[in-house]
């Protein structure tokens, strides 16, 4: 990673802003909102209580990932379908941020942009104070491998690989063959530790088709954590699970957040799940309808 890209794991968590927004649509100054002092400085329709700062977000701020003015449209033939229409977003370090909204509101698109799987048409995204949306493809791939963990509604495990191999996949991707071979013992130990953490030690050699939905999602979580990422992006992680299994997955995510300080951005359409997160971004029609802390916090 060069000096323009995101740095490694943050080693300090300063008590700074809570929310962030862009003052102009084209990457102008940013406003970082402190919960205790932003109420009197409202200037954005999305974030009525915000204090201005500049982009890129300084590393000293408490936002691990932040985005401003994101627009994204998909084109099919001659038709352009706008999905995001100027979205501002920020996720605080060590917190769980929920992105909520109806189907087609742009939740997953926003998550994909944050995960560098796609580029915004307009707007900027900063990770740990450095822009990531303009990184060259190879650096984006490396960033995704090293800094992000992703889990999906449909688990997205590789069917040809065993559970252990699926968990090891990001480590294999991120390391050269020689490096991986030299450090394979420590990497495998970490993978096994994570598998144990998600409670699947007895399934190491099993293929995805031999696992239940909950087990597959746990595997996906272990896989997402194997490179020790700073941020976990979860796209409706419980959307394909029954209530009890979904609750256990959320419990797992909460414990990872609580015990390991893992920052989580989670897309969901379930209000009850969003309510249990530290902050919520509500999307509607491609725009942020409401940005702020969750109305209530209950134990998951």
């Amino acid at each position: 990673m060069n000096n323009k890209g995101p740095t490694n794991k943050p080693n300090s968590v300063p008590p700074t802003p809570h929310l962030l927004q862009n003052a102009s649509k084209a990457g102008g100054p940013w406003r970082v909102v402190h919960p205790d002092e932003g109420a009197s400085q409202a200037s954005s329709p999305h974030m009525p209580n915000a204090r201005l700062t500049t982009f890129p977000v300084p590393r000293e701020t408490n936002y691990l990932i932040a985005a401003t003015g994101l627009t994204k449209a998909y084109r099919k033939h001659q038709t352009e379908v706008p999905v995001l229409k100027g979205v501002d977003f920020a996720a605080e370090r060590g917190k769980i941020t929920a992105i909520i909204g109806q189907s087609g509101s742009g939740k997953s698109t926003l998550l994909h942009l944050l995960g560098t799987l796609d580029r915004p048409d307009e707007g900027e995204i900063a990770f740990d104070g450095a822009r990531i949306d303009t990184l060259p493809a190879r650096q984006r791939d490396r960033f995704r491998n090293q800094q992000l963990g992703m889990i999906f509604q449909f688990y997205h495990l590789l069917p040809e690989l065993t559970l252990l191999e699926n968990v090891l996949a990001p480590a294999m991707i991120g390391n050269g063959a020689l490096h991986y071979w030299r450090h394979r013992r420590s990497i495998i130990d970490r993978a096994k530790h994570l598998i144990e953490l998600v409670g699947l030690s007895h399934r190491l050699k099993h293929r995805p088709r031999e696992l239940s939905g909950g087990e597959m999602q746990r595997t996906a979580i272990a896989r997402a954590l194997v490179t020790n990422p700073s941020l976990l992006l979860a796209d409706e992680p419980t959307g394909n699970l029954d209530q009890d299994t979904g609750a256990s997955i959320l419990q797992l995510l909460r414990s990872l957040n609580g015990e390991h300080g893992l920052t989580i951005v989670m897309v969901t359409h379930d209000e009850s799940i969003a309510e249990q997160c530290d902050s919520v971004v509500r999307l509607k029609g491609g725009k942020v309808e409401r940005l702020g802390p969750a109305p209530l916090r209950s134990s998951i």
Partner: protein
Amino acid sequence: MYKFLLCLRYLKTRWIALASIVSVTLGVATLIVVNSVMDGFTTQMQDRMHGILSDIVVESRSSVGIAQPGWYEERIRARLGDSLSGVTTVVTLPAMMTFQHNGTSHTQHINLIGIDQKTYASVSDFSKYLLHPENKEKLDFALKQTGYAPDRKRLQPSGWEYRKPVSRYRKASADNLREEKQIEEARYHDLQEQIKAQEPEGDDSALGSLMAGPSIQIQNAAQQAQGFDAEFDQRTGIVLGIGLGSVRGREPDGSVDDFFYLRPGDDVSVTFPNAGTPPRGINESFTIVDFYESKMSEYDSTFAFVPIEKLQQSRGMIDPRTGAGAVTSIQIKLKPGADLNAARDVLRDEFPVSHEFVEVRSWKETQGPLLAAVQLETTILNILLFMIIAVAGFGILATFFMIVVEKTRDIGILKSLGATGPGIATIFLGYGVLLGTVGAGVGVLCGLAFVWKINDIARVIEWITGREVFDPTVYYFDTIPTIIHPFMLVWVTIGAILIAVLASVLPSIRAARMHPVEALRYE
């Protein structure tokens, strides 16, 4: 690491791709079989040609030939030095051979070759192609009592064992004919007397109508030979190509054998031109003393060997002043390892075309058109078969595109985990290499097994179809000759792998360029 792991897993789980490379396997196996058989044929043919033709030929372009072969030999020995293994002189000319069979006369074109029996074996494998074991050791153009290829029942009896009783029979037939002639002559005489008595004096018309003589033309062998007795004497020996004295055909049980209408002990008459200007035909009788079987039908059906002295004498090629005989060519054998082309060039330098009326050619140049034709045939076959593998490559291309589509979501997953485009491309390229390697490897094994058991397989196919796959009456080989060159195996394998890899390039690029979000959403 993940690329290799996924390549292996795809190889184990995507059987459709393996099926697509069956064509590669078949193409590789076919290439190996065809090349092995063609190489086998070519090598055997070249070995035989080389064995027959010697290494270098210094050939006269005049009908008179080289008048002073000794002088040429000295120069050849001086220039080639240690690389020279043997030299011999030869008289070669076109001729007609006539023989009697079943009471009718047959005439055939031959290449009459006068050889020096002392030195000819030193420049060619001539001796090893003769049938009689003694002639294989040393040819002396003398008819042997018996022992001509004892394993060939249709050639027995041969030699004196055959000639003596046949000659006795012919003599007895001639004696009978002589008695009949005397009776006819007596009758003819009586008839003349009767006619003379009945006709008026001076009218000879009736007599004239009878002056043609008796209807039976009698060949008085004893009178013609002037003391030659075929039962005890032989004429000058001649070694005939086996195709001149036999025809290859099938026994009633279907087995292939040579049916001989001439055999050692028979006499043949050969007509050839003399060395004069203009040339005149000379007729000489020879006794067949052996057959020559090189298994090259072109040679076996035209070559006839006689002693060079006899040919020089008959054609008038011996200088009456010096006693030296002219030759039409000088054949040269080099020691093993000697550079054929370099030696040829040395001799061309020594006997430049501008000064000498001789031409220096290597054996490969002598048979250039035939060897070139075989080479061309092999090349075209290889091109055609590689085109078949190329067609198989398109099959792989289609299958790979299908697999890439099938694996779209996996590609999206890998990209979401941080896999780069080139990394994704490497998976499918590696998969192509693996498939090509497996296909070519299995093809090589199948091809080698086929070549190893090719004659057994041919027999099975013959048994199933009832038709002969390899007709020995055509090819003069008992078994299908094969040679496997390791280099051929290597280039066929590499070629097949390369085609498989090339076929996987486009699908790999497509996979690499796949958008991760679209790939993840692919249903």
